[in-house]
């Protein structure tokens, strides 16, 4: 069987399981609605869901892009400015030791109820896995390549661009895979704490009004977005770093 079909099969299986649980245990629809009614709701509220999906997706993607850029820059600084390392590492750890959830209200206060605060939450969450993975990759360049480049009289910039950076890509790719999976946490939690749009906001509103089917509809869309984003990233990374299958796995 083709590997690309398996996730689809898992999805169908989950749907059947969901339907089965609802039917067998006779769960009332205000606790768990059956898949069909959720689907109905999805179709009925499609314009609304679409609008809010775009908002949340935009937050996630912007957070991802900025988080990756900052993470990579941080890794480069840690590798090349060794004097700064003992100062920066505790700082990096502090940003992770404080739960982002605890920071959320402060971020709302500072950056408002719009997209900015959600993007910043996402950046805070994904910055760390990207920075550490990229740092590890840059630090552990294969010694043979470094020796070779050294005897060839490589310039530092050429060394980074042609040896260390491509050598770090497989490690950075694992960081990116983690980042893509956790990015929705930042966006949705941000929306829960305070927002006027987005899937997280919709879930909160639906929950308050006991529109459980709408809540499940939003949840399903969110799951699709996350899974889609992961597979897209994975596909792109495989295309861009074809040699990692031999070296990293």
């Amino acid at each position, binding site marked *: 069987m083709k590997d690309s079909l398996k996730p689809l099969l898992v999805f169908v299986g989950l749907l059947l399981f969901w339907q089965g649980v609802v039917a067998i245990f006779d769960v009332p629809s205000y606790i768990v609605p059956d898949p069909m009614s959720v689907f109905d709701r999805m179709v009925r509220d499609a314009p609304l869901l679409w609008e809010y999906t775009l908002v949340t997706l935009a937050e996630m993607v912007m957070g991802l892009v900025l988080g990756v850029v900052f993470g990579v820059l941080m890794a480069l600084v840690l590798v090349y400015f060794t004097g700064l390392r003992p100062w920066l590492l505790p700082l990096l750890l502090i940003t992770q030791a404080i739960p982002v959830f605890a920071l959320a209200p402060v971020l709302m206060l500072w950056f408002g109820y719009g997209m900015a605060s959600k993007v910043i939450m996402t950046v805070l969450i994904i910055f760390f896995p990207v920075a550490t993975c990229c740092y590890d990759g840059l630090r552990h360049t*294969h010694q*043979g*390549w470094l*020796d*070779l*480049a*050294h*005897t*060839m*009289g*490589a*310039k530092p*910039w*050429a*060394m980074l*661009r*042609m*040896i260390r950076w*491509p050598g770090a*890509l497989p490690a950075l790719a694992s960081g990116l895979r983690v980042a893509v999976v956790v990015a929705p946490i930042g966006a949705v939690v941000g929306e829960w704490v305070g927002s006027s749009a987005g899937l997280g906001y919709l879930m909160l509103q639906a929950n308050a009004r006991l529109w459980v089917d709408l809540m499940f509809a939003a949840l399903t869309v969110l799951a699709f977005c996350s899974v889609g984003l992961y597979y897209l990233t994975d596909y792109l990374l495989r295309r861009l*770093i*074809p*040699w990692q299958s*031999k*070296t990293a796995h």
Partner: protein
Amino acid sequence: MFDISLRNAGLAYGDNQIFRNLNLTLEGGRWTCLLGGSGVGKTTLLRMIAGLTSGRSIRTQGEVVCGDGLPLQGRIAWMSQEDSLLPWADVMDNVTVGHRLRSRSWFRKKKLDTEVKEQALTVLEQVGIVDKACELPQNLSGGQRQRVALARTLMEDRPVVLMDEPFAAVDAITRLDLQDLSCQLLTDRTVLLITHDPLEALRLGHHVYHLRGKPAELTDAIIPPGQTPRSLDNEKLMMLQGKLLDRLRHSEHDEGSRVHKGDIQ
């Protein structure tokens, strides 16, 4: 061609003295082979000559002097046991990596200079894999990868070549082929080849040394008779190989027993 002298060389990792007061002269334009068991410090010695020993816990003494008075730095090509091919670059890019690493441009030029490209094709032709120029290293066999590494070494076109067991990872037949090829393509260069295979040392070396003990010392040079690469049906070569193998085994046993005694005390 200039000689290279290693004078009173010493190196220690922390308290672990690998060798001290070591003197070795590499005759210009000739192959010097260095034999020794694993862990005796052959590679460390080679790295020291290449200027690759740096680090907080490493202490070095002595100096490396070239016969012509100029520094050795920038005049060596390095070839290690692993081929160290860049997995993301095709054969052509791997062979020309030195040129690109030294270029001053900030971003990669779309095209290599024609002369560089032609030179690369020539060396690839010499090592016999010009048809693989566009392949990625992962699609090559171990022997082909070492050929690319050899081509990359030739491309550097340096008077001194330092080789660290370059043919250890390939099968016996391929190894003989690669030895012949290297011998033919690297004549008239000053080569220091490190190996644990006495036959390889005897086939290729004009001078063969044996590094043994702790701290390591060099034995007197063996000068095998005849032209390199020496053929395998040479009786004298085989006799020397037997003697050297014996000596290698005994020196390893001695070290083993010494360690053992230390354990008991």
